[in-house]
């Protein structure tokens, strides 16, 4: 048994490796890694903790009940407030107003949904804006489309018109959008 010391040497080296693995593992692998699979389980909680920006229409109705009711009765009832306005988080926090809600009265905002496009389902109410405005004699064929052209006649919260004609008098004064502040 004079050569057993070779065996001991090998065993000693193996033991060293085992210890190095156990100690190294502790520093390299983050806690919660492998609890549910080959990933860090704490990452889920980190995602869940991110801030919510959109509050939904119900959260708007808490303060702006009159406008919410208007919307509920009209054809825009399926359009969430924050689609045309901005996310709740930019306007209010825990029920208190933190900043003015930006208002977009541009033609482009309406055109997102109502510009006539071949790819849109036929059931969607859509118009060729220039044709619509010239037919109603709001503009002539040469004019540029004014920025607030749609909201001049339509109430954005309940947009259906009873009659297809522009209101009497100066159209720019007939801004139907009520102040929401």
């Amino acid at each position, binding site marked *: 048994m004079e050569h057993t010391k070779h065996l001991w040497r090998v065993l000693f080296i193996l033991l060293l490796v085992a210890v190095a693995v156990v100690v190294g593992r502790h520093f390299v692998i*983050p806690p*919660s890694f492998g609890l549910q699979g080959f*990933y860090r389980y704490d990452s*889920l909680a*980190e995602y869940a903790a991110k801030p*919510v920006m959109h509050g939904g229409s119900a959260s708007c109705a808490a303060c702006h009940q009159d406008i919410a009711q208007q919307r509920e009765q009209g054809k825009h009832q399926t359009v969430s407030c924050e689609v045309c306005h901005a996310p709740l988080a930019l306007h209010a926090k825990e029920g208190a107003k933190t900043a003015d809600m930006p208002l977009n009265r541009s033609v482009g905002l309406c055109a997102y949904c109502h510009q006539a496009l071949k790819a849109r389902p036929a059931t969607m109410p859509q118009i060729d804006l220039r044709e619509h405005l010239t037919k109603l004699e709001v503009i002539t064929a040469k004019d540029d489309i004014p920025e607030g052209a749609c909201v001049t006649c339509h109430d954005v919260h309940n947009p259906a018109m009873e009659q297809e004609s522009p209101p009497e008098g100066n159209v720019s004064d007939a801004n139907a959008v009520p102040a929401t502040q």
Partner: protein
Amino acid sequence: MQTQSPRPNNPSPEDARADVCRRDFVRQAAAAMSGVAIVVIMGESGAGASEEQAVGAASATRSSAYDPTKHRYIYLIDITKCIGCGACVRACEAENNVPPHYFRTWIERYMVSRTGADLTDSPNGGRDGFEPRVTGEDITKAFFVPKLCNHCSYSPCVQLCPVGASYRSPDGVILVDEKRCIGCGYCVQACPYGSRFLHPETHIASKCTLCYHRITKGLKPACVEACPVEARKFGDAEKVGDEVSELIATKAVGILKPELHTGANCYYVGLSQEVR
């Protein structure tokens, strides 16, 4: 002739001492190391137990009694309803702070002509809506296809992530561990749906999270919340009487690239064979 051996048979007292010392050293070192190993292993198992408790506490507190193993999220898109307004893309951008010109969800416009010309477009991902387009072709059908991560059951991106940063959560959401991702971009190349990108500032992989911070609180993803025509629907296959599960079970639905067997969990109503 007597030669002076460099190592005499009778070792000098110094040599003998050296031999003993080595043997003793090995013995003592082995004993010491095994002692250390036992201490470390004990410490490991002890620390492991306390970590598990900490994780359990964290998952319990992150959302009141939210258990990810009790949900399996699914998504349904109705192409026949989509008007291509881009509200979903803008909502996603606002909710998730998506950098400009990168998209976690986007809309493609397909225009199919009799000549078979490729007329598909997606200007700025549909974020700014679509303009009317004069093509000079005989368009026989046209439609919008919203796209997002399909949260595949057997997703290629998770399979090849070398560091375990991409994963599928117990509730069926493909996520990227932002602290673990090294930004190698393999997953971006692997995704057959083009749903991932490397974030231009953080340089790590970014993608749709199904608004994980919302759905764990019982809210809908921002894109579903924003859709004015209910073309996007969000459901939970584990919930009894779930509307989306019912629609998938009873209606004609399809998934994108079924030939790749990714187990996509975004279903489409009105899917046409031109959609890629």
